[in-house]
């Protein structure tokens, strides 16, 4: 992958910025529609991320730096 995926939090931030611009801005229709398209893409990405809930397995770093699954002892 050439480009690292934008962080979830950054996506939400960008989304909020675009919406504020659309709500208050004076941008023309074409620009607005471009912004809307971009924002819808972000919304869908965020939705997808949230809805694809596969619960994350806890991990632990071993002394040698390796990562392995970690289960809490009851």
């Amino acid at each position: 992958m050439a480009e690292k995926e934008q962080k979830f939090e950054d996506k939400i931030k960008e989304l909020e910025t675009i919406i504020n611009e659309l709500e208050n801005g004076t941008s023309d229709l074409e620009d607005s529609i471009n912004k809307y398209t971009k924002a819808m893409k972000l919304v869908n990405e965020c939705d997808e991320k949230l809805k694809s809930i596969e619960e994350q397995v806890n991990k632990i770093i071993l002394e040698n730096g390796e990562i392995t699954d970690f289960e809490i002892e009851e």
Partner: protein
Amino acid sequence: MNQDKYLTVSAVTKYLKFKFDTDEHLRTVFLKGEISNFKAHTTGHFYFSLKDEGSKINAIMFSTNAKKINFSPSEGMKVLVVGRISVYEATGGYQIYVEKMEQDGLGNLYIAFEKLKQDLAKEGLFDAAHKKTIPKIPMRIGIVTAPTGAAIKDILSTIKRRFPICETILFPALVQGENAASDIANKIDMAANYEIDTLIVGRGGGSIEDLWPFNEEIVARAIYHSKVPVISAVGHEIDYTISDFVSDLRAPTPTGAAEIAVPNMIDLVKHIEQLKIRLKESILKKVNYNKLYLDSLKNSYVIKTPMIMYENKKQKLDLIETKINTLIIHKLETSKQLFEHLKKNHILKNPQEIFEPKAIILKQIIEKLELLNPLGILKRGYTLTYQNNHIIKSISDIKEDSIEIRLYDGTVKAKVVEKEKK
């Protein structure tokens, strides 16, 4: 054998107990020592011994007193106790009934804590300007704590409950004892290599000595230098450590740290839903506005009656046409008048009046020219003499014998016989 002088075990024990209980030196005893064989009974009573290098005394602390202490007594802990010493008849052993107990050496620890806190504050390790922002929606949380115990359990279960899609990576560390501080610092450094959004550093509650690694300079500096934002979560609400001051955010407990670290999934989903609604409303508003504007344009006078534009231009064209016509007619008129005027001119009507006098003058000039014509003179008997096509006017012009004589009606080639100058 007279047995009357023999006492029962109970009697002598009772006697000894009486002696202990009436001795005012044993009623309130201030004692210091090290805890050993510590047992916290299910009833809440503590059973343990206090010892030093030379001796040992059994101790009991009843639950009413035991529940008042704010630390967990443990093996080898140095303590200061206040209580009375008496005999427990059932075992015949004497023991101290502890009423109050606190940790020995706390004074020294407190001084060390205050000094380090001041030094690091002066150095700027606690400055708000250096605090990093804790990400609102982390996708990977690092945790530096013990792999067993309540702290890790609380943190993981809280994260799972609130934000199950978040990854967690535990960096297991010793959280008490001699090597704990360097181990914790080490794990904080290590966490920088795992693309972690937020790092939780802490442990569950314990005695001030248990929490002490989090008051060590090496841990404070590791937190200060961490590139990952750090939330500290050491002990209970009331416990403050140096780590709490230097970290980017202090949580009252490990559970609290997890609550601060991750958002609530339900809130986040709601937030995104709201953003979606706002997004749709804003674009609809924009589109509607443009639609209305377009309608207003469509209804404008010019668009509705396009002939107006044409008619205006047509009218202008007509005007120009009229102007041009007028100008041309005027020009024609003037030219015609000029022509009429010229037609009436006297000279043009009688051109002979111009050339008749001229003809008379011409005739006179021709007659004069006739008089001047040298050939006319020849007619009257004169001749012209040439030598080599040059006219000979003087006798000295004759260079050779052959000459040419031109007459009125021809030429004679002749030879000079004799020259005689006058």
